[in-house]
């Protein structure tokens, strides 16, 4: 961690530590998962349920998102099969089950796209930090600077059994009714996750820019003074380094995390460049941003040097005709046999109504939104062809990409290697 100056906001408002001034561009991300975020979406007309694990389906979705000038897409992933009950596996056969490795999927899409950021989810509990670090670094090379990474802890017993190396904390039924209670026994996993991200960041810095010199006169390919052991010693593991993969176009690929409670807010403050939160209304948004700002202060992050972008997650069902999206969601609920429930707010309405909501919530200091399409490709297309033009008409969203890197889209600088600073 570099500076320890904490929040130094000239206006004295804590929210400004993570917020953006009014008039800053609005950022939009899209969260892609299966056939969409409604469990019955795979049965909708237009869905491609037999192709959810195949390349062409994802290539089409990401092309559409890029057409809509979206900042980045995220890809969900987990080490176990999806489940309706989130804390244990189920034996349901009526919902989407099965997934492919999100980093490899993102890499596959890299040569098929030119601007959009690609942010795969990975587990950081059962995997090797070194492998994770070089995989994301390689995605940044493969995409020429558009890689992000969403590290995710895993506490399911069933995931642990897939590896057989360790167990993870057991929560009670009471715990799972409250996100603060949930996160308490998981503090150790979050702490370990923060170590994984820190080790990865050190590996990404371990090759300075310009380490490859190709000096034929002295016979040296490398300037080894610019390649560094990291000697990372965490509470749970150690990594010697340096990385095998040279410094990437972004220097540091973008770390994105999703957070619902104090512990993950601190994880975000320690580890992330973007934090996605799940407010349910405008006052709630302001309250969460204040909590995030407090976490930033507690961890001593210098947000001038290391800005933290804040996004709010929303599940969206969008149709042009008023009331149509709500009817569509109701129909999906009926097919699913239960009303859709989510950690995030569920929006149904028209693109114009959604634009109103986004701009209202954004005034609390949010930088952008991560929209989770309820059904694919329908709600993605409604975002790119309905919402985006609406936001453009209002002058708050880009009309073309102004950058080719993900950091560039978000107005984040390319960091210098910490070892170059030290040297």
């Amino acid at each position: 961690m570099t500076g320890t100056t904490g929040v130094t906001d000239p206006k004295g408002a804590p929210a400004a530590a993570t917020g953006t001034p009014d008039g800053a561009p609005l950022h939009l991300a899209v969260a892609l998962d299966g056939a969409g975020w409604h469990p019955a979406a795979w049965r909708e007309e237009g869905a491609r349920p037999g192709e959810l694990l195949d390349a062409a389906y994802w290539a089409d979705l990401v092309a559409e998102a890029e057409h809509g000038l979206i900042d980045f897409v995220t890809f969900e992933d987990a080490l176990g099969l999806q489940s309706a009950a989130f804390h244990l596996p189920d034996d349901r056969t009526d919902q989407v089950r099965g997934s492919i490795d999100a980093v490899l999927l993102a890499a596959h899409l890299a040569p098929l796209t030119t601007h959009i950021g690609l942010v795969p989810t990975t587990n950081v509990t059962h995997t090797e930090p070194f492998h994770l670090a070089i995989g994301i670094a390689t995605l940044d090379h493969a995409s020429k600077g558009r890689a992000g990474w969403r590290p995710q802890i895993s506490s399911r017993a069933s995931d642990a059994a897939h590896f057989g190396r360790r167990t993870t904390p057991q929560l009670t039924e009471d715990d799972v009714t409250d996100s603060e209670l949930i996160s308490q026994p998981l503090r150790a996993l979050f702490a370990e996750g923060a170590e994984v991200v820190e080790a990865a960041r050190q590996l990404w810095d371990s090759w300075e820019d310009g380490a490859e010199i190709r000096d034929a006169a002295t016979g040296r390919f490398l300037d080894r003074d610019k390649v560094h052991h990291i000697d990372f010693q965490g509470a749970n593991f150690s990594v010697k380094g340096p990385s095998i993969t040279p410094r990437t176009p972004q220097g540091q690929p973008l770390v994105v995390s999703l957070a619902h409670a104090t512990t993950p807010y601190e994880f975000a403050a320690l580890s992330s460049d973007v934090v996605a939160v799940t407010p349910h209304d405008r006052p709630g948004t302001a309250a969460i941003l204040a909590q995030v700002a407090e976490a930033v202060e507690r961890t001593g992050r210098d947000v001038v040097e290391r800005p933290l972008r804040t996004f709010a997650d929303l599940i969206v069902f969008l149709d042009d005709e008023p009331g149509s999206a709500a009817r569509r969601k109701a129909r999906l609920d009926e097919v699913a046999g239960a009303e859709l429930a989510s950690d995030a707010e569920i929006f149904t309405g028209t693109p114009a109504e959604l634009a109103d909501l986004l701009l209202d919530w954004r005034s609390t200091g949010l930088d952008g939104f991560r929209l989770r399409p309820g059904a694919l490709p329908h709600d993605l297309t409604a975002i790119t062809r309905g919402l985006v033009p609406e936001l453009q008409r209002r002058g708050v969203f880009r009309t073309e990409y102004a950058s080719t890197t993900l950091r560039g889209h978000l107005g984040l600088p390319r960091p210098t290697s910490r070892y170059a600073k030290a040297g």
Partner: protein
Amino acid sequence: MPATAKKQVHLAAQLPGIHNVTVWSDPRSESQIAIDSFIRLAQTIERGKFDFFFLAEGLRLREHKGQVYDLDIAGRPENLTVLSALAAVTTHLGLAATVNATFNEPYEVARRFATLDRLSGGRAAWNVVTSYDAFTGENFRRGGFLPEADRYTRAAEFLTTARELWDSWSGGDLKADAATGEFTAPGAGRFAHRGQHFDISGRFTTPPGPQGHPVIIQSGESDAGREFAASDAEVIFSKHNRIDAARDFYRDVKRRLAKYGRSPDDLLILPTANAVVADTDEEAAAYAEEISRELVSPQTAIAHLEAVWGRDLSAYDPDGPLPDIEPEDDAHFLKGHSVFRKGRAETARQWRKLAEERNFSIRELVIEVGGRQTFVGSPQTVADAIDDYVQTEGADGFVLVPHLTPGGLDDFVDRVVPILQEKGVHRDDYTGTTLRDHLGLSAAPRPAGWGGPGQPLRDERLRAESVRDRPARDQPLRDQSVRDQSVRDQPLRDQKETSA
């Protein structure tokens, strides 16, 4: 022999990373990291109808005298990630990645190869390697814990476990039937493995791709390596720079297949090779000489000698004779190289003998011992030599390692491949879509009694055991209440964010 009966030459290529096989000082040599280099070489060899593109693995930068080794190409991307990107810009080319069975876990590796096979439409291959190297282990959670004696047993069990995971979905398990509402068959992905190295169970997330199992590649010349290849692999990489040694190896490995119920065609032997092509044989020979000298600079020659001698030899003249001092067994001297299995003293003895016999300088000796099978000559000469090698049972084909990245196989593809095609020993176009098709491999080898994709489920014993969904070893869990929160966007059912 009639022309139609001629053996086909299988061709693969590698984008070389680490090691001194790349003339990085050549102005035509570009990045070995940038994705455009990989795309360029892969698309070139796909134009030449090669079987596959191969990438090695790197998990630690090499060190020499306590410092990062700086004389050769260093640094490379993660290979499965690169190959997933290449799957998008190629249509037929096989994509082979080396993945270590020591510093990985079967669930994750099986999942990543299943993903690559799906993304590529059935073109994945896995070069299974092992390590007992504590130096490399310093980059991993468990460190260099694995005793050398265990690495083969772990690798064998690793591969068995991966196969069980790939077989955990049968062909019809992914239904995605919107009309009936059935997305998967019950129990899809269910597995349980209990063995010496792995004790795992649960549900595997990824139905395998079109090949069912990726093509399994092995490299290694030892008796154990040959046996492993004969029992478990479908391609073996070898390294012989003399045809007689290559034929001996070829016959020995092919002979071993029968005892595993396999035919000689079930395992392809592909030595790594260089090809230096020019208008005439004379020009090619001169160019090959030039390449050798560029690959082994004076500094590189001394460094290689130091690697064997285990001591500082910087005072010696690279164009002079070998040192008359004896090697030292200083393990700290050089790390990350995979060399000198025979030991320093024996290697030094052999090198000294060779240098005396041939009157080699240090640099000339290093050039000689570093050589691999190299085809040097006009396009016709090179095509004839490759064809002859394959027809006389020296190999089933070659993995070409170009000395230039990424354009190093342009001449081969443009000038040698058409001659091989005219000879009827290399395909004019792909006749199948999967790597197994290209290699003439019909199905993956399976452990006895094991089902596979398209076959109805698996061993009932296994199934009964796995249903219990055993928790991890040292802490019994009822599995009910463990919940994957917060970083996972699963719905928090009926639950308000109290933090909001």
